[in-house]
């Protein structure tokens, strides 16, 4: 192996370390420190201990936002991964249409969340596309004020998120399917295993890495979700779609309460780290067990 001087390596690492350290790590650490102060964006601030966190958890809006964030992540995770797996398992057996169908399904993932929200905010209007469609096919009683009803608005927002990324999830599973040796499936078929048995016995275990990727990506994306609720509902109606990110945005950029916003950000950080590392170690253990 080629020996390079220490100086050479430092030279290569310097730009990345400087940028990453200054604009990611430093704000990360400063954010944690800010959360123990009453900073409002000015140069001076006082140390207030855990006061910001106490205020945070005394606020029913914050507790609700935390619940919404977790519920949203869970719904998107389950439905999106489930539909993606379903689509992939159908397409894996149909090589002639696999590419064209998965590319069509992938189209929504190219649309930005803002634009997807534009489209759906019209479809969701009381006089919009979905209600018109339901009326046309004689299901008028299913018509809803999709984004105006606190009991369904969060799910309506999650549906847009799911719609965008099912194709993404499907393509990741298809990549997993591509790694399953055809011999294994053929052997199982010769041994008389039916489709479900082959899925349970061969495909599902061998898709473990693809599942890990899907779950991880989905969790990271949904726990930090902002654009969909921000554009579609602005957190309403009656706070029913407000998430942790929306609270952080409100605290910092409309109330300029940096201390409070930093505390909410720390809560989000802990949530993401705990949930994603728990899911990660669970899934990796599963991968190894297989």
């Amino acid at each position, binding site marked *: 192996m080629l020996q390079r001087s220490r100086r050479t390596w430092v030279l290569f690492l310097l730009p990345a370390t400087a940028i990453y350290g200054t604009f990611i790590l*430093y704000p990360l650490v400063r954010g944690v420190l800010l959360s123990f102060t009453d900073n409002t964006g000015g140069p001076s601030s006082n140390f207030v201990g855990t006061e910001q966190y106490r205020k945070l958890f005394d606020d029913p809006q914050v507790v609700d936002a935390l619940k919404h964030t977790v519920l949203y992540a869970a719904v998107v995770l389950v439905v999106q991964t489930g539909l993606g797996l379903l689509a992939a398992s159908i397409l894996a057996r*149909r090589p002639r249409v696999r590419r064209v169908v998965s590319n069509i*399904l992938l189209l929504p993932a*190219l649309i930005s969340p803002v634009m997807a*929200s534009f489209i759906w905010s019209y479809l969701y209007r009381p006089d919009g596309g979905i209600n018109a469609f339901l009326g046309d096919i004689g299901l008028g009683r299913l018509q809803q004020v999709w984004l105006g009803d606190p009991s369904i608005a969060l799910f309506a927002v999650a549906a847009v998120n799911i719609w965008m990324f099912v194709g993404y999830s499907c393509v990741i599973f298809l990549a997993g399917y591509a790694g399953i040796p055809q011999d294994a499936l053929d052997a199982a078929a010769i041994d008389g295993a039916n489709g479900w048995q082959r899925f349970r016995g061969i495909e599902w275990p061998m898709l473990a890495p693809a599942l890990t990727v899907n779950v991880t990506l989905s969790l990271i994306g949904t726990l930090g979700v902002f654009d969909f609720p921000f554009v579609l509902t602005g957190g309403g109606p009656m706070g029913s779609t407000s998430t942790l990110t929306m609270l952080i945005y409100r605290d910092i950029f409309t109330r300029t309460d940096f201390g409070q916003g930093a505390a909410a950000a720390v809560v989000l950080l802990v949530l993401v780290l705990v949930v994603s590392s728990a899911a990660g170690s669970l899934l990796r253990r599963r991968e190894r067990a297989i």
Partner: protein
Amino acid sequence: MSSDMSTTRHPSVPPARVLGADVVVSGGDRPRIRRRTRRRLIEILLVVAALVYVGPFLFTLLASFRTAGDIAADPLGLPRHLTLDNYKTSVQEIHYFSSAWNAVLLTVFSCLAISVVGSMAAYPLARITSRLSTAMYRMFILGLTVPVFVIIGPLYLLIRDLHLLDSRFGLVVIYTALNLPVSVFFYTSFVRQIPAELEEAAAIDGCGPLRTFFTIIFPLMRPVTGTLLTFVSLQVWNNLVIPLVFLQDPGKSTVMANAYSFADPHTLQPTQLFPAALLGVLPLFVLFLIFQRQVVSGMTSGAVK
């Protein structure tokens, strides 16, 4: 996966598929032909189902050429008179050309910085096996899981104190920092596969480390660079919150931020809303059509490892 797979009785297939599975006893020509017809039919159905799935998008496309009265009278109908007026209004409303130009500039410069800075860092991280380099690699990878909202407050204070608010340069720096983790991740796993003999040969020929890197290693990374840059371009082009927070002047802002600021989806007519939405995705769709393969792998790589 050829016709022998058609005996598969799969849990997730639609009923039609399961019916087909019973026909497959080998033998004369007729069952085979029937089996094939059924297969074709299912394939056509799948394509139709996929088109229905992206229906909201196709609907938007059609409606963007219709007049407001036309849509109000029959939201789901086919267009009767086609018009480009909606696009003219939208282009003005969201300052489309200047916004798109800004977004292109930001995307191009961010991509440049992300690939150069990230690949340079990945080179030693992949080549040195020491506790320090592993720790540094982990530190970069940690950034993959941290949502931008965790740091947005302190980042705002920092950018403000550096007088980089409302500056395109500031935005490029932010995007570079935010995307370094994914860049380091991609490049490190790639450099590990490049044999070190190449560099040794270059060193013996008297080629300095920087020149070795930029003339030998970096060009070898072209496939991973392509993948990374499609991913990053999507991120930068589609991002809303960074330009919204860090740029105040609409003249410097991007399509997404200006669309959000100037087009309220709750009050606007669909005729104003839809062209805005489509103009926002247009450049990406053109790229998708050209670089289909790279985009798909850019969006999904990491899954196959």
